[in-house]
């Protein structure tokens, strides 16, 4: 049941990306291309998503427990440091180069498998390398 719900949530998220058009990198790049033929769609996606999520998070609160786990796992890091900033810059440049970020990339695998094979292999490699580097610095 806990796995089925995770599967369903993934499906819902993926369908949301598809309905909103965010699975299409050209649409995402159309938003980021503010001096070009501007497509504001991504802004509307964020508004819809944040409105629902903010209300939902408030409603859930911190009391009690999630249905399938022992406790809520909210991030508790509040520090704004060079790591956060440099990570955001790297991610932003990559996103701006191809218009793909992790979520939409997953939905695109079946649609454009070869392009996504290249992108995903590179993304996963980047993740493994970054995790290794971060844990060495902390160790």
């Amino acid at each position, binding site marked *: 049941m806990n796995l089925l719900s995770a599967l369903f949530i993934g499906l819902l998220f993926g369908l949301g990306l598809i309905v909103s058009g965010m699975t299409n990198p050209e649409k995402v790049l159309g938003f980021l291309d503010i001096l070009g033929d501007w497509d504001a769609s991504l*802004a509307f996606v964020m508004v819809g998503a944040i409105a629902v999520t903010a209300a*939902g998070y408030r409603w859930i609160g911190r009391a009690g427990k999630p*249905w399938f786990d022992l406790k809520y796992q909210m991030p508790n890091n509040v520090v704004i440091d060079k790591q956060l900033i440099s990570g955001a810059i790297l991610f932003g440049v990559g996103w701006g180069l191809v218009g793909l970020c992790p979520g939409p990339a997953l939905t695109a695998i079946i649609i454009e498998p070869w392009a996504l094979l290249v992108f995903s292999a590179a993304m996963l490699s980047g993740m493994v390398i970054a995790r290794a580097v971060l844990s060495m610095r902390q160790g």
Partner: protein
Amino acid sequence: MHDYLLALIGGTMIGAAAVLLMASHGRIMGVSGIISRLMPPVANDWHWRIAFVIGVIVAPLIALLINGKLPSIQITHSPVVLAIGGLLVGTGTVIGNGCTSGHGVCGLSRFSVRSLVATMIFMLAAVITVYIVRH
């Protein structure tokens, strides 16, 4: 207009998914984190992560069932650019601990200043990158 309405509706579906993940598993729906913890060293709770990822990957098939065709997308970039972009997205999301879903949707919904800063920075970096590439 029609596009923007669909964007809003799709956004609310994304939001609903985020809320459901918090209610059911107590987790932030940050896709970069969900995926990265499936990479070595693999997290102990990989089961729900894999289920979630499978759901996202398979979603276009639902669209195929409903619409009779897969969503159409355009990817015009060369493999080299795709690889560089992927590498940057992979390293950046791990170093910055989040992406558009993690910081942009979930973080902002929690009124996290850290996520606000991250979101503004990656948005700006992306906009500048697109400007340099296209103009």
